[in-house]
């Protein structure tokens, strides 16, 4: 049997994933991925959630309340959040601050989550907005409640973020770094200048903010991604909670994200702390992600809710593909480079692979999706 060059590459990359090892135990709970409601995804649509590109607070608050109630089966908003969080929790909210202003985490969504946590009894000081990058987080700082704690693992972005203390060339304050006790070792995935004999090159360490919270919420945005295909809950958690992640797509024609994303997210300290995924699809980005161009943003007016990160990603992935089809583009899975996306291989199959690794439901027949239209 003859294999194509691409098939050979894929098999080698899969073998590299299979050889990955991890360090750092963290026990599972009833909330651990896929969480309290495996396969359940709620979409809530409200036509007034964005007007002329501006987020509308009241409709979005209503959407979030309804989404959480539908997801949990609770009769009211406070009880819905109490199903997942309690007064003893320290909760990290992994936001997405990367991109043009219409496709980053919105103030309305962040406020909706923090208010829900407060109703569940979580103390204000025990809510932490998290991201890997202080510079990017600063980009949405004006949207964050002034009282809320923030944690960034590194100061800025670089190709090779292997510093345990977090990439921080000018020793700026407010960088929390990574934890040497928790890592995944993937010697098969390296940037061209990285060495397989250097542990800091073969390992991806977990951000300290992950180790310092008891539960994590992923707040992602409905976006195309030129290497991951889509950047939703899984991608938000993978690239946002570990260092040395660029090696997963080391060149425009080389991509390991299909295996790397689920390998990282399956680390016990991540999969066992993530209890809720909210995908903000008020605006969606169907091409040129993750940073985006306004020409590729559409008003989707929908938010997705699930404890099952994989199932929620699968539903949102289909929404992006549907929009690409309307625009005359191929699906993410079959798309390559175009004038706006330089990478030739996109791998939304990281969602499928995550399902195969037991992180959640990925087959359509196993997903119970319900769309609630409010207006």
């Amino acid at each position, binding site marked *: 049997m003859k294999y194509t060059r691409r098939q050979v590459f894929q098999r080698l990359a899969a073998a590299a994933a299979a050889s990955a090892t991890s360090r750092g*135990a*963290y*026990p599972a*709970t009833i909330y651990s991925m896929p969480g309290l409601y495996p396969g359940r995804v709620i979409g809530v649509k409200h036509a007034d959630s964005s007007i002329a590109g501006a987020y509308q607070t009241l409709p979005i*608050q209503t959407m979030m*309340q309804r989404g959480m109630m539908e997801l949990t089966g609770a*009769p*009211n*908003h*406070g*009880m819905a959040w*109490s199903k997942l969080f*309690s*007064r*003893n929790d320290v909760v990290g909210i992994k936001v997405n601050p990367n991109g043009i202003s219409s496709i980053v985490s919105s103030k309305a969504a962040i*406020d909706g989550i*923090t*208010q829900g946590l*407060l*109703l569940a*009894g979580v*103390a*204000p*000081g025990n809510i932490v907005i998290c991201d890997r990058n202080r510079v990017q987080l600063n980009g949405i700082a004006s949207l*964050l*409640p*002034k*009282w*809320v*704690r*923030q944690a960034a693992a590194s100061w800025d972005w670089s190709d090779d973020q292997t510093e345990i203390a977090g990439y921080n060339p000018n020793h700026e304050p407010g960088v929390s770094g990574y934890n040497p006790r928790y890592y995944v070792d993937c010697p098969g995935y390296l940037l061209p200048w990285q060495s397989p004999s250097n542990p800091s090159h073969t390992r991806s360490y977990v951000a300290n903010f992950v*180790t310092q919270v*008891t*539960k994590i919420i992923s707040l992602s945005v409905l976006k195309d991604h030129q290497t991951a295909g889509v950047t939703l809950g899984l991608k938000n958690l993978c690239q946002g909670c570990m260092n040395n992640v660029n090696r997963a797509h080391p060149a425009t024609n080389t991509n390991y994200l299909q295996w790397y994303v689920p390998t990282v997210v399956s680390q016990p300290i991540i999969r*066992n*702390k993530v209890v809720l995924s909210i995908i903000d699809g008020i605006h969606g980005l169907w091409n040129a992600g993750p940073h985006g161009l306004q020409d590729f943003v559409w008003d989707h007016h929908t938010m997705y809710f699930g404890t099952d990160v994989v199932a929620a990603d699968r539903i949102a992935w289909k929404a992006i593909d549907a929009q690409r089809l309307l625009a005359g583009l191929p699906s993410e899975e079959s798309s390559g480079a175009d004038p706006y996306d330089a990478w030739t291989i996109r791998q939304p199959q990281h969602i499928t692979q995550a399902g195969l690794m037991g992180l959640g439901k990925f087959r359509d027949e196993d997903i119970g999706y319900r769309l609630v239209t409010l207006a």
Partner: protein
Amino acid sequence: MTSASAISTNGLAAGSGDANSTISQPFLRSGSGILPVSPVSSPLAFGTGVNSAGSVVGYEFSVDFSTFRAFLNDASAKYLPLLAGGTNNAATGINDLGTVVGYSATGSASEMAFVYSGGVARQLGTLPGGTTSRANAVDNYGNIVGCSDTGSDAALHAFLHSGGIWTDLGVRSGYQWSEATAVSSNQVAGTLNDPFGGTTAFLWTAASGMTALGALVPGGNSQAFGVNAAGDVVGSSDGAAFLFHDAQMIDLATRVLSSRGWQLSEAVAINNLGQIAGTGTHNGQAHAFLLSPTALHRSRPRQRKSER
């Protein structure tokens, strides 16, 4: 939906709730029913403490959600002053003398415990070498408990501040940090947190040190939220309210004479009369509850001569 936060020495209860639960407002539960508490000008506010005079403390968020402020509702409703440099503060407890404790925060930076008395808020400080602290409760002797970092350990340690003396209650082996949440006559209750998200309620006394209380189910988790002078501790263990009494952790639901339709999820406070406030669900709705012991089951706390 309502949830309870505190109970006074004479059985008044405070908490938060609202009819549709999209917002939260503090309340006082007295013999005349549930009363709203002011000052509240925001849709999101929480009652956290109450004393025998019916004074309620808590915190409320600004309408734009950008700041939160501690409030005290006694003879006159007021916001408590911020510590120097502080932008937010929250009150967490009040005793029968009107002494209020809580914490003040500077933006998104660290917190500092405060004590408010006689119209003045002052910084409580930290354990030796620490930079951040939070006060969670004060009893009628002025004993204050909470958590603080230390000079040698960035992790938080439960503390007791009594008569101007700081006591580091420590962190038991196998745990990462601790927080004290309740105090009564030098009985201190709180929670130990392990590195893996596991929690265990504790009771601390000067004589016995820190005792882990276990959980309702083997290998389960527990958190302590209240304690009385007899050393009875209440809290939550794996979704059920517990009472720790006579060296045993008991599922509180098993001690309730008429609990039809109720699931008691957490007990948050217990007074010296043995009354317990908490939160549970009744016919699917979350409600605060107040339990009073029958004569048969009433525990008799040890009384100190100077008990007020």
